[in-house]
């Protein structure tokens, strides 16, 4: 037995260790360099290209300093900017309070059916931003179902505001849900023991703990609205906004310089809110201590009924809008022949891309989800769990926060400029599926990476050290331990990337070619061509695909959790 203690054979060890070392070097350094390259090409260079394009005065491009001065002093620009600001502020002012009430109802009250309401509230994420617009046209347009309820038709300011409100609602809701999920029961006990009523408790505990999230939600809704052109293009009518102008300048008039200038203007609110949010976060610090006790709401009849009414009202609105879109896609010839048929789904007979676009979208979404989650999760792992290459880690961390502050429209413009630069060898990628996938991954990188980082930070910090002491290469440890433990988070990232890729138009609209046209772009094109029924049908298809994949992944995740319950329930040990 004494001999067996010396196993594995000492002579074998150094070679095995050195192979592991080499493999790890490739895994760690190679992985980081690859990510750096990706972030440089897919995020940094396109952004720089916008500035370069905006300030270079080429003939007929509408760029340069002179053009910039002309643009910002023109009456037309003032009108567009004013419209954009009015719409965005109105949407934020409507959506944030509603989302706050909704989130409060889900997190702090005892209303029944929370999971259903939560699922319904996420519907707008599953469809391109044009869908609410299309539904509004069928509801309140000139021949709309409920046209009689309003004095004027829906096209214009209120159409855009309503459409954007529906489109941005779940984005605001998610921020507020996570802010309201954190509550320390001890604080509420202390407040009530000092005689504070529910209103006082809200003002002194809940509000201070969530006001930063309210600000963040406000900024997000504002930025999403001001950079979105999906809703204005459908229900805007004569009411023009900046995002639409940038889109028309580049796609319609080939005025790249003018597009870049407007893109820069649109980048400002995003950069501003990103900066202020980061600053607030640093001021605020972490409000939940490790010893906090989870807050559990107690039943209260009046409160719960009020909140249930609010939640029902919002969900009914969402159902009405999305139901209308689905219904209208099935109606044979609105409003004259209301019999149902699948005529609008015969995409091959109409212009706009048809089934090719749908197939492309699914391919693109699958590639984005699978490649993106692998790249992003591995990148987050390397950044989070390896301490060497500090400079590289810092550069990666900073670069990976950039996409959060860059609206898709601006990113897409950057891609147009960068990949069309004369002499850029990457020009061959322009219009290909590869570039669409790269752009979509880059666009949604930050959120996915934050999910990954959160999951990774919950793991014991000594796992890697333990693996190394056991002479196991890091890449094997990553595959055998880290990935299995984080599989639920990984599925969440896959779902997020898939749904985002299915529904995105903002960046993709500048990057597709006839062969790589996407479903969401087809919606826009069909609507533009007056084929609103076709647009509704394609939107519905996107909606069901996204929702179906989401449900499938949620189900897979549940099954996975159940199967691994044996080791999940007890762990982690500390």
């Amino acid at each position: 037995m004494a001999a067996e203690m010396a196993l594995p054979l000492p002579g074998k060890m150094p070679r095995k260790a050195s192979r592991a070392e080499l493999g790890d070097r490739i895994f760690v350094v190679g992985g980081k360099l690859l990510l750096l390259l990706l972030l440089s090409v897919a995020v940094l260079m396109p952004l720089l290209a916008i500035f370069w394009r905006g300030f270079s005065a080429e003939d007929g491009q509408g760029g340069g300093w002179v053009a910039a001065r002309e643009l910002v002093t023109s009456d037309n620009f003032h009108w567009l900017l004013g419209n954009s600001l009015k719409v965005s502020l109105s949407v934020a002012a409507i959506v944030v309070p509603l989302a706050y009430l909704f989130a409060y109802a889900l997190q702090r009250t005892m209303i029944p059916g929370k999971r259903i309401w939560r699922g319904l509230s996420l519907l707008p994420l599953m469809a391109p931003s044009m869908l609410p617009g299309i539904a509004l046209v069928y509801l309140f347009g000139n021949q709309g179902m409920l046209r009689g309820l309003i004095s004027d038709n829906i096209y214009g300011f209120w159409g855009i505001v309503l459409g954007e409100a529906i489109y941005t609602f779940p984005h605001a809701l998610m921020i507020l849900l996570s802010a309201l999920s954190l509550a320390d029961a001890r604080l509420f006990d202390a407040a009530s023991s000092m005689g504070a009523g529910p209103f006082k408790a809200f003002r002194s505990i809940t509000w201070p703990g969530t006001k930063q999230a309210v600000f963040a939600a406000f900024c997000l809704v504002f930025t999403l609205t001001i950079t979105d052109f999906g809703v204005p293009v459908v229900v805007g009518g004569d009411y023009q906004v900046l995002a639409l102008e940038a889109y028309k300048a580049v796609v319609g008039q080939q005025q790249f310089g003018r597009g870049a200038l407007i893109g820069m203007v649109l980048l400002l609110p995003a950069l501003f809110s990103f900066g202020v949010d980061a600053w607030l976060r640093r001021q605020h610090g972490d409000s939940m201590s490790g010893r906090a006790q989870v807050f559990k709401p107690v039943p209260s009849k009046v409160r719960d009924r009020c909140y249930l009414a609010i939640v029902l009202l919002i969900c009914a609105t969402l159902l009405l809008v999305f139901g209308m879109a689905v219904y209208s896609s099935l109606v044979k010839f609105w409003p004259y022949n209301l019999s149902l048929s699948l005529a609008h789904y015969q995409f091959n007979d109409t212009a706009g891309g048809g089934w090719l676009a749908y197939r492309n979208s699914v391919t693109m979404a699958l590639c984005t989800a699978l490649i993106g989650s692998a790249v992003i999760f591995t990148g987050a792992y390397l950044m989070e769990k390896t301490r060497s290459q500090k400079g590289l880690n810092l550069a990666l961390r900073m670069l990976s926060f950039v996409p959060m502050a860059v609206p898709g429209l601006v990113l897409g413009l950057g891609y147009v400029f960068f990949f069309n630069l004369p002499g850029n060898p990457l020009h061959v990628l322009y219009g290909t599926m590869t570039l669409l996938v790269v752009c979509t991954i880059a666009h949604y990188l930050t959120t996915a990476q934050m999910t990954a980082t959160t999951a990774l930070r919950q793991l014991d910090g000594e796992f890697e050290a333990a693996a190394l002491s056991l002479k196991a290469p890091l890449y094997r440890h990553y595959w055998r331990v880290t990935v299995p433990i984080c599989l639920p988070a990984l599925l969440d990232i896959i779902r997020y990337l898939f749904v985002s890729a299915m529904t995105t138009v903002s960046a993709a609209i500048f990057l597709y070619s006839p062969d790589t046209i996407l479903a969401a772009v087809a919606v826009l094109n069909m609507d533009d061509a007056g084929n609103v029924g076709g647009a509704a049908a394609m939107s519905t298809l996107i909606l069901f695909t996204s929702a179906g994949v989401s449900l499938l992944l949620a189900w897979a995740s549940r099954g996975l959790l159940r199967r691994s319950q044996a080791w999940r329930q007890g762990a982690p040990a500390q």
Partner: protein
Amino acid sequence: MNRSNATALTQPGVPMKVRNVSKRFGAFTALDNVSLEVAAGELVCLLGPSGCGKTTLLRCIAGLERQDNGALYLGERDVSELAPQARDYGILFQSYALFPNLTVEANIAYGLAGSNRDVVRKRVGDMLELVGLTGSEKKFPGQLSGGQQQRVALARALAPAPSLLLLDEPMSALDARVREHLCTELRQLQRSLGITTLMVTHNQDEAMLMADRIAVMNNGKVEQYATPQEIYDKPATPFVAEFVGQGNWLPFQRNSASHAQVGGMSMRLADDAGRAASGRLFCRPEAISVNPVLHQENLFPARVREITFLGNRCRMSFELNHLPGHALTAEVGSQDLPRLGAPDIFVALPPGSLQVFA
């Protein structure tokens, strides 16, 4: 744990050497020119308050931090620049860092990759027997108690037969009741395997209980490196005296080679007590005799301030009449309590128990 089997697995350990290792984190000096030698088969504790550099030293030896200067040797090999995988050690973390998604069996076999399957199975069986957990192969770490998890982590660390075992605060996640028991068991296992071991702890009882030698660390330096008894009886620096055990401090001026003036008293010192002309005298509470039956040297009148009952013994706080306002403590057996009824007492501070610090 099965001791007969443990003895059968005995292998000779290798010595470990740390030479002039320094490590800075920005402006903070975590390790300041530290040298340490651990003999083959020895168990050495790094003891010190948090921030003293003990964990940093352990992580440098493990290759998880890279030292700024200095060298590390394991046996004859210079491992200073090697990656952790190439150093040949096993480590037991405070959190155990057991992989929750792998069974006990797979955790222990984690470091045995590349060996043939039957050999691995046999090895895992042997290791489980060694730590007394035979039959837990298919369980997950989350299904085990804290003490059992610690044993699995130990089995995992020992399975690849490393030359050095590192223990990073191994007991601090356990409750006090099982701690002492597991300390003893771990010590027995280590001794029977003869594996060179370095343990980091901030708990002096653990260090006293387990170590062959203790390195007391403070501010990135080793203050004293000696056996537990020497550390306790002859602390090399005021920090060691203060950190390990309880003690009394008395300011003094030297009168002569053999006497020191403390307040209004002249105390006789032992011949080897140190040469400083002034400073502080150090004395352990249990070395002080209270109302001694026989006459003793350095006997002074004192007044009791407070007596705290601690079960088998009592802690008495008192003041020397000739050094008022300066609280001292002595420890006395509970059976001596009746003799301490009156507040006025005599205490003897034996010359051999008085240590001189400048």
